[in-house]
């Protein structure tokens, strides 16, 4: 009788373990699906931003209108804080022209320290112009180029950022900046997407300039 009792307990125990294991695998699989769906949603939003950019490519717009629309899309559709620094050729400097989502405290600090301007080669943004390559700072507090202004990161709640050149072979328009709330915010697919966006915008702005010249 004791053996029978123990056998019943054993069977219940084994069945419980098997059911619990199935449930754990199910929960892990659900989590995997949630992550995948999140990634697909991000990519759908990215497609929407690119689609909006190209759809308006043949409609006449001023440079600032076009860039404002793009920054609006990046901020509202994708949720990224962003800004555009225009390249002032005669001074060889970048000037902050348009921004979305940045705090007034951060903007005031940038105005006080940099007077809204960055020289070619200075900080991360200036390096974008001199190297003609994107610059990704995945941890502002640890970047040696930005150690002098590390305090600005805490003021603006910006712990990572990326700057992408908007330039063609013949003209330099400026840089597109994206700002992250955490360190290591920029993964490879995000860097590639924003680089594609900056490159596409460069071609569209060049097209606008050439059309204006013709007119």
């Amino acid at each position, binding site marked *: *009788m*004791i053996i*029978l*009792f123990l056998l*019943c*307990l054993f*069977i*219940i125990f084994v*069945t*419980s373990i*098997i*059911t619990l294991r*199935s*449930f754990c*695998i*199910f929960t892990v*699989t*659900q989590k*995997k*699906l949630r992550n*995948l*769906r999140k*990634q*697909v949603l991000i*990519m759908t939003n*990215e*497609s929407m931003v*690119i*689609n909006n950019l*190209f759809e308006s*490519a*043949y409609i006449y717009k001023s440079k600032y209108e076009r860039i404002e629309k793009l920054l609006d899309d990046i901020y509202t559709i994708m949720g990224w804080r962003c800004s555009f620094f225009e390249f002032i050729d005669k001074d060889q400097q970048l000037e902050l022209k348009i921004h979305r989502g940045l705090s007034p405290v951060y903007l005031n600090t940038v105005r006080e320290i940099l007077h809204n301007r960055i020289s070619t080669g200075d900080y991360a943004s200036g390096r974008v112009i001199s190297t003609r390559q994107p610059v990704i700072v995945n941890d502002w507090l640890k970047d040696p180029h930005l150690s002098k202004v590390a305090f600005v990161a805490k003021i603006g709640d910006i712990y990572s950022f990326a700057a992408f050149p908007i*330039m*063609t*072979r*013949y003209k330099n328009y400026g840089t597109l900046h994206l700002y992250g709330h955490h360190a290591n915010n920029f993964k490879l*697919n995000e860097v*590639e*997407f924003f*680089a*594609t966006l900056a*490159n*596409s915008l*460069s*071609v*569209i702005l*060049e*097209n606008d300039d*050439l059309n204006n*010249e*013709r007119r």
Partner: protein
Amino acid sequence: MVTELLTASNLIFIVILSTIIVVVLFVLHQVILHKKIQLFKIITTTESEYEERKKQQQVLYNISSSVFILSSSEKIIKNALNEIVTMYQWPSLSYIPISTNPPITFGKEVTFSKDEIFDKIKQNITQIKTDTNESSYIIFLFPVGQKDNILGTLYVPSTTSELSANQVFFFKTIASFLTLVITNNYKIKET
């Protein structure tokens, strides 16, 4: 004490209770298994969609970056088609310019004449069905250039009857990008 508790009637009760518990756990396990199978099917579909979009993004990135390295429109177009065939693993693709230049093809040769293709485009027809001895497939056309100034077209054969919305968007983006690049290069040469 345990042996006192384990009388025949108690034991029968324990066995019945155990059976009920095991049956309930078994049914629960089957339900979870069924839901898991459904979940796996959804994951497989979502994963393949994710992989496809990732490849498309990679292709767009490679093509947009090449614009600053490659000097001529022909090289940019060839590079774009090469990226689509290699990275996106599309089996066959061509670019057919409206000028007298020959088509640029990766994979199957173009089976229609330029006149036939651009007549279809003028009539706003962007799909041509073909039936050969080997197989039947559909050609999707994505015009490059603006309505009043067509520069060429992407010629995209597909064995499926419809491209997904995502694929249509992808090829349209490529066509828009090529339009801008070719137009810019042409205007720069003129100036």
